[in-house]
């Protein structure tokens, strides 16, 4: 609809010809500027250390793509980057799946039951909305250390799913499911969990997918938390591991490998965002409401 009326409007409001080309040119210029850091990282990941070390480095890719990426993936600097990629993947999926699972269940309970402590519970999760992990890092670190969960996947995942954004989203969505459906299920003698599995869950598919995209990126891009609790390089995630690849002191950094790692670190979230653009934008708008 909006699109069509826009086309109609074009003839009247927007100019054609030269002005249109200028608009395209401006847009492309903007994109080139925004893209430049990524392009440069890619170029750096395909040339040799000596080409970078004698500035200015080339602005077009060189012939060392396979060599650099092989070196990064299978030997890395402290630990092979493939290990860090696997850790990041487990952490991001763990956060996304874990948070969606617990939120679906509790949102279902809040919307479809009246139980003692419901109000208290509701306020409890409301408060968790307000505190990012960065604010409570020291005590949270002590809790994780007390459980002996340093350098573990549980330690990476659990503190980051303790917030209620997803519960709120699902609550909002469940409230839009017509009452008749629950009524019919109840009249048919369906058990609550049957109703949940057969009706509510299938209806929530799109919301779940949109949230998954957002939470995956949130988990993948975590920095401070993995930095604190993964002291063992074998448990490093890729996003926090890159900083560890820089040498301390005055040694020269191994730029081709570091830049190859940074490209590898952005590939999974970029693929997800670009391929699921519609869901991503929906998730973004939903989770900010």
């Amino acid at each position, binding site marked *: 609809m*909006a699109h069509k*009326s*826009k086309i109609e409007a*074009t003839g009247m*409001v*927007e100019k054609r010809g030269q002005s249109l080309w200028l608009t*395209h040119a401006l847009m492309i210029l*903007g*994109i080139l500027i*925004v*893209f430049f*850091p*990524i392009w440069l*990282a890619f170029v*750096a990941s395909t040339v040799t250390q000596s080409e970078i070390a004698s*500035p*200015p*480095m080339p*602005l077009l890719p060189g012939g060392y793509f396979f060599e650099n990426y092989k070196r990064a993936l299978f030997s890395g600097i402290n630990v092979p980057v493939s290990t860090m990629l696997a850790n990041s993947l487990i952490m991001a999926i763990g956060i996304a799946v874990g948070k969606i*699972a*617990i939120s679906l*269940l509790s949102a279902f*309970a809040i*919307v*479809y*039951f009246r139980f003692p402590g419901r109000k208290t519970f509701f306020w*409890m999760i409301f408060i*968790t*909305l*307000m*505190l990012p992990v*960065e*604010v*409570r*890092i*020291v005590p*949270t670190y002590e*809790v994780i250390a007390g459980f002996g969960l340093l350098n573990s996947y549980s330690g990476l995942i*659990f503190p980051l799913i303790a917030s*209620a954004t997803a*519960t709120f989203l699902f609550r909002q969505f469940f*409230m839009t499911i017509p009452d008749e459906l629950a009524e019919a299920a109840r009249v048919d003698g369906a058990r609550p969990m049957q109703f949940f599995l057969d009706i509510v869950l299938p209806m929530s598919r799109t919301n779940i997918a949109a949230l998954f995209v957002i939470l995956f990126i949130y988990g993948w*891009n975590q*920095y*401070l938390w993995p*930095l604190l609790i993964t002291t063992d390089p074998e448990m490093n995630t890729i996003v*926090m591991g*890159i*900083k560890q690849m820089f040498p301390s002191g005055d040694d*020269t950094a191994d730029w081709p490998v*570091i*830049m190859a790692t*940074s490209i590898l670190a*952005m590939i999974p*979230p*970029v693929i*997800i*965002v670009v391929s699921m653009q519609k869901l*991503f934008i929906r998730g*973004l708008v939903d989770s900010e409401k």
Partner: protein
Amino acid sequence: MENRVTFKGWLLPLLLVLPQILISAIFFFYPAGQAIWQSLFIPDPFGLSSQFVGLGNFEFLFSDQYYRTSFLTTAIFSTLVTLTSMVPALFLAVIADRLIKGAGVYRTLLIWPYAVAPAIAGVLWLFMFNTRVGVVSWYLGQLGYDWNHVLNEAEAMGLVVVASAWGRISYNFLFFYAALQAVPRSVIEAAAIDGAHFWRRFFTIVLPLLSPTTFFLLVVNVVYAFFETFGVIHTITSGGPQQTTTILVYKVFSDGFVGQDLGSSAAQSVILLVVVGALTIIQFKFIEKRVHY
């Protein structure tokens, strides 16, 4: 909304909310409570016992010149990040909104930086401005400008601001673009017929209509600059030079984990907690308004 059809029973719903309650209690309420509790004590140097000091930690913080400076740094930093990410995003969205062909492709390309983690963005920008091998710093040198963010405070701040704002341009672009698409064409056409040229239409009609989105993005970007830019600062400057890029969240980390000053770090956490609370309330107030808008 409260008269919905509901199922009977209380055991099942309690079981359903149990996982969330347990996780929130262990990893959220207990640590948050600990932060508040610890902020009232000063541990002795050996960590064996601690002494109750009431609000002593807070009094000390606010008399601490470094902490007050960190507040100012955070204010400057978040203002600059918000502006640097919103103005170009609005500009790009206005251009994209004028295009019919190609807008989808441009949007796809512009989303990329959003997916890049702040810490990775830090590495990319550090690489461009590296004092020894950086391309941009090298060309600046050719132009006679000696770039050195390791020593120069303003350059360090500039670099962390741009690196933090970069990925947010994508985010803001998406919201501005969606809002622009929703501006009624008839209003624009009417103004065009009245002879208002593009920029006049933009400032008198479009921009006011965008104000709910703009305000929303202001709050969200300030929250981002406060709490999610740790990775950028840690990779590029580690808070330096001379703590000039040490924002509040960075200071909680450096005092608590590097400096091992737990009482002060906990007090800082509590102050941040109040800040987040205030920002959240502003956000919620605004969203209520937006629903009526």
